[in-house]
């Protein structure tokens, strides 16, 4: 039978199955291959909260979404064009998000009475025709197919059945015209000690690919052209990994030792895992007894001249507040990373949210200002981490870097930077010039940055004592004087504010005035940009401004805001940054606040924009 090939611009695929079905791995392979093919892409894994919920249950569904395109894209997409559902629970959990007209591919063999019951289906949706009105449904006997393909390998049926995700992968490779070879190479390395597993998975993948090619079921293939990304070398990168590289790059460029102290917590743990594998770069990692020991050990290392970094999430950040206050008082460089997740309390540990921004700003006793910035895409985590380190060192201050679960686990093609091109980080440790009358003056500040001199144990004649009690300017001695305190409170604030001077002008996407300005921060950048692109395509007078630095805010923000009739700020919280901007500029920023544990979609934003400017 003849197959037609259709060229499309953009595809969104969601793989969904049981936690044991290997959906993250399948998604990861599809992503790598898609990256190699040269599409722009963006991904969004969605883990279940349980380690391994009962097989077949709704709680155990794991999903992975990828959007890829021949154009420059900003988000992993809203509704999928195609859903791969490995069992009834996966179908049940995700079906409602597929747009009418979309495609569903199911592993029929998993639609057993038991699994149907577990998923809460009274009748089999593949048989009762309920789906057929809205979707194109393909029922594929994947389990059976892989069993046949691997018949003669002498593996247990259970092991063989585990390869069915590679069947699905192969089928999707066929549909979207992607090569299987990179995955074959990858399998060969991954299971180098178990050649029979390599063989089984390759056979399963080939079976899937061939199934698409030979059966009469699938009549159309799709091709997606290469995206015209700026020239350069690319790789696919996941947010937490990019962030770890950014930290290591900052250490290398500043010639400081990187000391990471932290306590495992989802979704921040991978930063600890990644860094602990880089001992050959001289990176020291310390799994502490809790988050407090995590940050305080880092503070000790910073006092001793290391580049100190800690990362955590949710409850872990709450525990670090007191120590951040000490870092503010001690004026030591420190980077605190908050990979935000759903809150409050334990909340939704594996879901994303932007609800810790006000805590980042104010979650410490007393007036304890800290620079705060947020990364906006998985790849940007590299640059944001680098910048956080650079600012921490330059201004001798703790810096808070906000990312979130979506950025941390999501991925995108990333132009490989040359670290020589990164802004340099010059560390000037203290020297005799800060010694007055034989005493080192730990709070004798740099006139411009207000940074205090950094003298570290081991340096002769610069012995000194610091602490968390208010200190006298210049000498750093304990001081309870009213005027000194007022002065120090103001000086610490001024130091943070002065960072704005080096941040340059804000880049507005679209016109400099108009009916509506959409503001974004952190991970909502992509959805906002997509929405603005779509709105502008419809000739709406809409522009987009992304805010990278939250404290200090860009100096020109006030002027920009007043040029627009309306300002809209989508946030995955109850309106946290918009609160700050409203207070600062007395501008009526409207919020689009969807706190659903997942990224806000471009469609939601377009709708909100339309209802504002009609």
């Amino acid at each position, binding site marked *: 039978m003849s197959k037609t090939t259709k060229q499309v611009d953009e595809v969104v695929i969601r793989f969904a199955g049981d936690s044991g079905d290997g959906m993250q791995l399948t998604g990861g392979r599809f992503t*790598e291959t898609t*990256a*190699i093919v*040269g599409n722009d892409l963006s991904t969004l894994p969605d883990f279940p909260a349980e380690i391994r919920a009962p097989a077949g249950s709704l709680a155990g569904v794991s999903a992975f979404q990828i959007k890829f395109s021949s154009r420059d894209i900003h988000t992993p997409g809203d509704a999928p064009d195609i859903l791969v559902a490995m069992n009834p629970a996966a179908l049940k959990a995700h079906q409602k998000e597929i747009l009418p007209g979309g495609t569903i591919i199911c592993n029929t063999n998993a639609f057993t009475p038991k699994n149907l019951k577990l998923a809460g289906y009274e009748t089999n949706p593949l048989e009762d025709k309920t789906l057929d009105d809205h979707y194109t449904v393909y029922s594929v006997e994947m389990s059976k197919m892989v069993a046949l393909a691997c018949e003669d390998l002498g593996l247990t049926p259970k092991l063989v059945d585990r390869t069915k995700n590679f069947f699905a992968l192969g089928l999707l490779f066929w549909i979207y015209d992607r090569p299987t070879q*990179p995955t074959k190479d990858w399998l060969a390395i991954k299971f180098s000690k178990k050649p029979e597993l390599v063989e089984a998975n390759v056979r399963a993948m080939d079976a899937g690919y061939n199934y698409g090619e030979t059966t009469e079921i699938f009549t159309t293939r799709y091709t997606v052209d290469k995206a*015209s*990304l*700026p*020239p*350069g*070398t*690319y*790789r*696919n990168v996941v947010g937490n990994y990019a962030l770890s*590289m950014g930290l*290591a790059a900052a250490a*290398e460029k500043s010639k400081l030792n990187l*000391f990471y*102290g932290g306590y495992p917590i989802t979704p921040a743990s991978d930063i600890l895992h990644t860094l602990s594998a*880089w*001992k*050959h*770069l*001289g990176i*020291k990692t*310390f799994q*502490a*007894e*809790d988050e*407090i*020991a995590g940050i*305080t*050990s*880092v*503070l*000790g*290392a*910073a*006092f*001793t*001249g*290391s580049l*100190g970094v800690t990362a955590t999430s949710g409850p872990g950040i709450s525990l670090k507040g*007191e*120590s951040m*206050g*000490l870092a503010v008082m001690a004026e030591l460089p420190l980077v605190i990373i908050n990979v935000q997740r759903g809150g409050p309390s334990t909340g939704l540990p594996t879901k994303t949210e932007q609800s810790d921004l006000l805590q980042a700003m104010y979650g410490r006793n007393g007036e304890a200002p800290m620079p705060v910035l947020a990364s906006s895409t998985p790849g940007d985590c590299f640059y944001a981490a680098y910048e956080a380190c650079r600012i921490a060192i330059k201004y001798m201050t703790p810096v808070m870097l906000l990312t979130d679960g979506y950025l941390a686990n999501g991925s995108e093609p990333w132009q490989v930077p040359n*670290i020589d091109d990164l802004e340099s980080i010059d560390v000037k440790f203290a020297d005799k010039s800060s010694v007055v009358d034989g005493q080192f003056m730990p709070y004798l500040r740099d006139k411009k940055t207000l940074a205090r001199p950094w003298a*570290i*144990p*081991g340096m*002769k004649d*610069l*012995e*000194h*004592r*610091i*602490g*968390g009690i208010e200190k006298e300017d210049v000498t750093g001695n*304990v001081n309870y004087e009213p005027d000194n305190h007022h002065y120090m409170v103001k000086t610490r604030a001024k130091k943070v504010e002065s960072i704005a001077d080096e941040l340059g002008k804000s880049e507005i996407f679209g016109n400099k005035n108009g009916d509506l300005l959409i503001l974004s921060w952190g991970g909502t950048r992509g959805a906002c940009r997509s929405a603005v692109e779509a709105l502008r395509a419809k000739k709406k007078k809409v522009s987009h401004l992304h805010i990278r630095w939250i404290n200090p805010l860009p100096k020109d923000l006030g002027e920009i805001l007043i040029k627009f009739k309306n300002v809209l700020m989508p946030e995955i919280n109850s309106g946290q940054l918009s609160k700050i901007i409203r207070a600062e500029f007395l501008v009526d920023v409207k919020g689009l606040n969807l706190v659903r544990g997942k990224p806000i979609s471009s469609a939601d934003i377009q709708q909100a924009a339309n209802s504002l400017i009609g």
Partner: protein
Amino acid sequence: MSEAKVKKTYTKQDFTSDQAVRWCPGCGDYAILAQTQKVFPDLGVDKEDLVFISGIGCSSRFPYYMDTYGFHTIHGRAPAIASGVKLANPDLSVWVVTGDGDGLSIGGNHTIHLLRRNLDINVMLFNNRIYGLTKGQYSPTSEIGKVTKSTPMGSLDRPFNPLTLALGAGATFVSRTIDKETKHLQEMITKSHAHKGTSFMEIYQNCNIFNDGAFSSLTDKETKLDTVLWLENKSPMIFGVEKNKGIRLDGNTPTVVEIGDKFSVDDILLHDESDYVIASLLSNMTYNDGFPDPIGVLYSIEDTRYEDMMMDQIREATKKKGKSTIQDIINAGDTWVVK
């Protein structure tokens, strides 16, 4: 830091900072400070390589008065901060000064984790069995029934025995001394310093404002010979005005016996710093009427140290993978070129 440095000869004055000392007149902290400053010139450590980390409490003011590197941090976290200091630069001589509240109440967890990790850090725990700085609440080492501001009818908590706790946490060096015993204090500081691994030194310290005389039976001339058991490694555990009392094991149970008709010196238990069972039964004599309080080194063994192994791993990894840079990692993985 480096081997090449010429060791200086110091005097007590070199370790005395320019800050006015701010403890209550008569506080036991003064004696501890003085002995520390006195003995430090003999440790052979360059002053710039010394770091004092403390938490919050009267005792935690200590770093301000030492003319070394110092960090007066937050309540209870000194062991964790000190761990960061030591891991950042294992060549430093790192000292933690803490109190019974700071180190055993809010900071109890960091203390026990430091002990199990066995970083080469010296912990000086000033035990006055009271919260001094906050003006007199009972502490985790206060004896049960203690009447304080927060326990007008007497405290209800069974106290920690710091030495028993340290042993339980896996400490490799456990000792005790007394603020007033200047020579012994110096000796314990010197031994703490010499020990490779975390050394835990409890110092009985008199808070003459809120818990005056807590240790007077151990320091008063009239009683101290009967109440203190001075520990000497490999020596029999003998004490008493007439040196005629000793500790004997009855089965596994320690008892106090008189040396004379019934028992001779040979029946008396020999101290052995490397014996966990002895250390543990000694530590349990505290708060135990009828037994003297053991003072000295209860336990001292060698074991692996976290920071050494950490540096080994870094060396090994660097050797195995070769000296690489972050650019190598950035460039690794499946890449493609867009032209």
